[in-house]
Each structure stands twice: as C-alpha cells, then as structure tokens.
C-alpha cells in the first residue's frame, strides 16, 4: 500500500469504524428484512416473541406449509442469478433495444416484465418443480422451514389489491411523465436565462417547496367536491356535464405534479447548467430557434439528468399518503392509503399479517428500483446539494 505512514490508521479506529458500519447496516436493513419474514408466516408465528419462532415458523410448519432444504438451496440459487441478471444484464438490454428517445418507455416495460417474471418464476414455476424434486428425495425433502404465501393470496386476489396497484401505477406514471415534460422545459428556460425574473421564480419555487401538503389540500378539497357546480358554465359551452374533480385520478396527478414542480425545476436547472452553453449557441448560429436547439441538441444529451429527476418524481408519487388519501375515494385508492384500511379495522391478527404482506408488496418495487438505479439516486441527491 502506498498510503503515507502518517495517514495510516490505528487498528482500534479501523475496527471501530467497521463495527459502526456493520451495526448501521443491521439497523438499516433489519426492519425491512423482518417484515418480509413475517409476511410468510401464520399470525401466531409472525407476532411470536421469540425471534427463532418467527424465522422458522413452527406453527406454520405444523399447518403443513413449509420449505425443505433443497427448496431453500435451489430457491436461493435462482434468486441470486435472477438478481444478478437484473443488475448486470437488464440495463444493457434496455439501452440496446429501446430506440433513442423512448428510453423511459423501455425502462417501464422492463420493470413490468421483470416483476411478472419474478412472480411467475417463484410462484408459478418453482413450487410444482420442487414438489417433484422433494418427492424424489424422500426424507431429505421434508419441510423444515415454515412458509406460507396465503396472505399474499388473500391481499392480492381476495381483497383485490391489484386494483390499488393499477391506480398507483396510473398515478405514478402520470406524475412522472407530466412533471418531467413540464419541468424539463422550465428547467432549461431557467438555466439559460440569467435574468432577475428567473432568480425570483426559483426563490418562489423554494418557498413552495417548504409548504406542508395539508395546507394545499385544505385549499383543494372544498373546490374539488363542488367542482361539478362551478365548472358547469365552462362545460355548458361544449354541452357536456362537468365532472366532480374529487376522486378523479387525473386531478390527483395534476396536484402531485404541481407539488413536485419546485423540486423538479431546481434539480433540472442545475443539471442543464452543467451542459455547456456553447452547445446550443452553436445550434443557434446555424439558424435554429431556441425550441429547435432544445429539441435537436439538448434533448439527446439530457437523458441522465431526466432519468434521475424522474426517479425522485416516482418516489414522491408512489410514496404519497396525504394527498391521495384525502383526494381519492375508496374505489380509486392507491396502494399506500389502502394499507391503512387494514388496521383501522384491527379485528384480527390475520388482518395484521395481511397488512404486513401488503406492505412488503409495496416495498418490493422500491427495492428493485434502488438495485437498478443506485448510481443515479446518489448522483441526483448530490447534484442538487453541491450546486444548489
């Protein structure tokens, strides 16, 4: 090692910092890991007071549902290769097959396909195959680890959680697309205009960023509920009846896009500032208008920044509880508010475990997201901080 001697650290410090990292990783991952384990057990095991009985699930096992040693080994191997495939192989394939401007579409398609493949592989293909293998192995094929997927079945099929999933998908996709379209234009305009007006707009956006969302929703609610009355004169022109905005996913999309705008334009502005002005000046000299310069010169090089900003828009829309729970009615509800329905009833522990299963279902796409986009998330967070 070429580290100068003075910079070398004493052993105690190295061990100390290593232990600190290990401890932090344990704290960071444990609650998430634990709810995953809980979601596969019957209620008696899931809320047991001994950690071992939550992990091994004796009651679940007694119910005749469990995994044998070969199940676990083969399952882990398949999982490992699946993850590896997602991390290594997927980004390259998306880059290869998605045509230039449609990268975002390629990613959405890839994410949906990956999710489907995962469900199909682990719930459709592996169980029957392993049943056959276990049968052949005799006593080695006896289940040793209690595991049941009944709660997932209850949540997704019986309680129709897929409806909430589709609503979440609609709202999230709408918010990401719209806020990027509007935000990119504004971010570019703000980055290329050095005027005082641009400065004040950015400060205004910063103030808007700080507003509690409940303040805004207090403004929307009465207006949205009575919208069919006050919008009627406008719609009379077209001879249509005015909609009630309350409960409409697209109204929520508009609201979330607006709430997200301050952050989006700040981030995209700092990204556009890192693209040299010479690039669009050259295009302008060649006779392009500002819009043509934006479309032909800037758009091809802006995708990294747009993807990063898109990720944060995704997180905002997907994780939102307050706005969606107040502005959407029960049948259009998204996933996160829907989960609270499980324990306002608080009737049985089965409900609780079903809520755990729903929580894990909501978290799974996010895990996939960090796995694929870790670099973009880190660079996005730092870009905003170092420059802003």
């Amino acid at each position, binding site marked *: 090692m070429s580290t100068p001697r003075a910079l070398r650290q004493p052993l105690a410090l190295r061990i100390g910092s290593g232990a600190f990292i290990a401890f932090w990783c344990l704290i960071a991952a444990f609650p998430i890991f634990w709810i995953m384990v809980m979601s596969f057990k019957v209620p008696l095991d899931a809320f047991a007071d001994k950690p071992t009985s939550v992990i091994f699930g004796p009651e679940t096992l007694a119910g005749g549902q469990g995994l044998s040693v070969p199940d676990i080994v083969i399952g882990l191997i398949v999982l490992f290769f699946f993850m590896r495939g997602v991390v290594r192989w997927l980004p390259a394939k998306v880059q290869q097959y998605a045509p230039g401007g449609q990268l975002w579409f390629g990613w959405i398609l890839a994410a949906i396909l990956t999710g489907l493949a995962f469900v199909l592989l682990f719930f459709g293909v592996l169980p029957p195959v392993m049943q056959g293998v276990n049968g052949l192995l005799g006593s080695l094929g006896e289940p040793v680890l209690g595991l049941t997927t009944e709660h997932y079945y209850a949540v997704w099929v019986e309680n129709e959680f897929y409806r909430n999933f589709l609503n979440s998908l609609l709202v999230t996709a709408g918010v990401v697309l719209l806020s990027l379209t509007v*935000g990119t234009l504004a971010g570019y305009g703000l980055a290329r205009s050095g005027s005082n007006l641009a400065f004040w707009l950015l400060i205004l956006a910063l103030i*808007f960023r700080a507003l509690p969302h409940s*303040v805004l929703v207090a403004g929307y609610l009465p*207006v949205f509920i009575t919208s069919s009355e006050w919008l009627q004169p406008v719609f009379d022109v077209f001879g249509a009846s005015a909609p009630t905005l309350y409960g409409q996913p697209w109204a929520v999309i508009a609201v979330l896009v607006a709430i997200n705008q301050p952050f989006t334009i700040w981030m995209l502005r700092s990204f556009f500032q890192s693209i040299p002005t010479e690039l669009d000046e050259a295009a302008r000299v060649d006779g392009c208008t500002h819009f043509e310069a934006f479309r032909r010169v800037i758009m091809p090089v802006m995708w990294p920044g747009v993807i990063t900003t898109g990720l944060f828009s995704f997180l905002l829309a997907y994780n939102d509880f307050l706005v969606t729970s107040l502005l959407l009615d029960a049948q259009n509800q998204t996933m996160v508010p829907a989960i609270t329905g499980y324990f306002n009833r608080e009737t049985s522990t089965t409900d609780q475990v079903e809520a755990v299963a729903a929580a894990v279902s*909501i978290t799974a796409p996010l895990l996939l997201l960090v796995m694929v986009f870790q670099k973009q998330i880190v660079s996005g967070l730092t870009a905003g901080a170092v420059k802003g």
Partner: protein
Amino acid sequence: MKFKTFVAFVGPSILMMLLFIAAPLVSVFIQSFHHTQPVYETVTREVCTPGFIKQICQEETSSQPVLGADGKPLVETHYVGLQSYRDLLDMDRVWQAIDVGRWSEILTIDFWKALRFTLTFTLLTLPLVLLVGLALAVAINNALKSIRGPIIFITLLPFIITPVIGALSIRWLFIGDGIMTAMLEQWLQQDIAMFAQAWTIELLMYFYRVWHVAPFAFVIFYAGLQTLNQDTLESAIVDGASRWERVRYVLVPHLMPLIIFVALIHLMDCYRVFEEIVGFSSQAHVISLQWLTYDFLTPDDAGNRSIARASASAMLTMIGIVLLLIPLLRRTWRDHKRGGH
C-alpha cells in the same frame, strides 16, 4: 434569451404552480374567515297521542336541515372573522392555565399539543441526523472500496422506503409482545408496553425519523468528502493536528455549506411531520400540526369535514414555515445583491 421565449419555456410550469399552489393558498386564507354549515330551520308542530276522552296534544319544536330544490341540504357560508382561529387556539383556557400556574394544562389543547410535538421533534432529530449522517460518511469513506457498493445499497433502503411503511415496519417490531419488546422486557426485567404512553411512542418516532433521514445526510456528506483537498489534510498532519483536530478544523469547515443545506431541508421536512402519526397510530397520544389539519379534513362520523378549522390550522402552520424561511431568504437576498448566484 428573449422574454417571449423564456415565458414559453417556463409558462406551463409556472401555470401549474400558480393554479395548484398559489391559488389554493389564497382560497385557504379566505376559507379560514368563513364558516359553511347546513341551514337549519326550527319547525313547530303539534304532536298528538290518543288519550282518554280527549287527545293529548303537545307542541314540539325541532330543528331540521332545510332541503334545496334538488333534495340536498342547503348550506350557507357566512363571515365569522377570527372565530375559527379562536376556537383553535383556545386562548381563554391558555390564559387560565397560566394564571393558575399549571402549564401542562395548555398541552391538553390540540393545537398547542401538536405545536409542542412538532417543535421538539424538529429540534431533537436535527443534531442526531447530522451526527449519524456525518459518522456514516466518514466511516464508509474509510471502508474498503470493494464493499462500498453493497453498503451504500443497504444504507439507501431506509431513505427510499415509503414513509408510512417504514414507520409501520418499526411499529411491528414493537407491537404487543413483538420481538423487540420481548427483548427489552428480558433485559430490563419489567413489563413494557411501547404504545401505551406518549413518551415511548415519541422515542420510536425520533428513532424512525433519524433512521429515515440519516441516509440522505450521508449521501450528501459522502459526496462532499470526495472533493476534500488531500493537501490541506496533509499539511494539517505536518502541523501536528491530531485525528480529532483534523475532523474539527479541516473536515467540518469543508462540509459546512452541505451541513447547512441538509439542516435546512431537514427543518422543512420535519416541520411537516405527518406519516409517523399515521404509521404508529399515535393520534390518541401524540399529534403534529400537519396531522391536525389532516384530521379536520377527514370526514367525521356524520360525513362532515370542518373545512374552516382546517384552513385556520393550515394558516397557522404556514406562519411557522414563513418564520423558518425568513433567515434563509434574507441570506439568499444578500447573496443575490452581491451578484453571486
């Protein structure tokens, strides 16, 4: 860039913000001075019950909502001035409590209870988040390059997880005789119910918030560490600075702008604390300002939303945010006048 082109680029975004952020603010402001309620009328009618020889008749008065032409109850809106604010702040009880000298009674009023929690929450978690974030950044920067990727992945998990779900996942560890509670009971040799009193719930909330935000602080500080000038560090060593002095006089000043940035973002976000209340279902013990507004907006058992009170509480929350932002805005204004943006 010409003004017209600028407007064309920025226009849609500004329009969205004006329509969905500025306009609601104005309407909240107006709503907070008005009160909307169904119109009631007093109906007097004679109710007769059969009796011997003669019916017994009584006059009964009852109030009932007036129905409009479409069969729905009519509502009327009238100006009430500061009434909603007065209801919310309940100053009479506050002065009474101060006169008697029993300060804790103030905290039984919802608004003051929420304000107390929001402020303690914001101020207590701030130093913790900064410290944990800084420690993580230094420690991970110190770790072997090959394991940094997976460590950063794990570190990001609490940050990207849905806040409500994150709070729930911690709650499930402690609920009833969950494993963490069982472990604590074994350790302290006494019966523990984490969700039976306010202060234990608050502790869990502080823990959750630090767990959730520390990764964000970490990422920012970690990026700042990458730009640290090695020469400065080495000259500090030559000058005989100890390890601690190097952190104190080289590292922290270098990261200072980032520390201020993280602190500001954290103050803004903490002031809006809300998801914890939902995730830990703590409304019986601990509430926050934003939750108070949310609660007024949620329909009650009769299906009514108290919009006026929600607006008043929203306006009061706003005042807090404005107070918080004034120092920041003044600094930006000074920087701008110096022409350094």
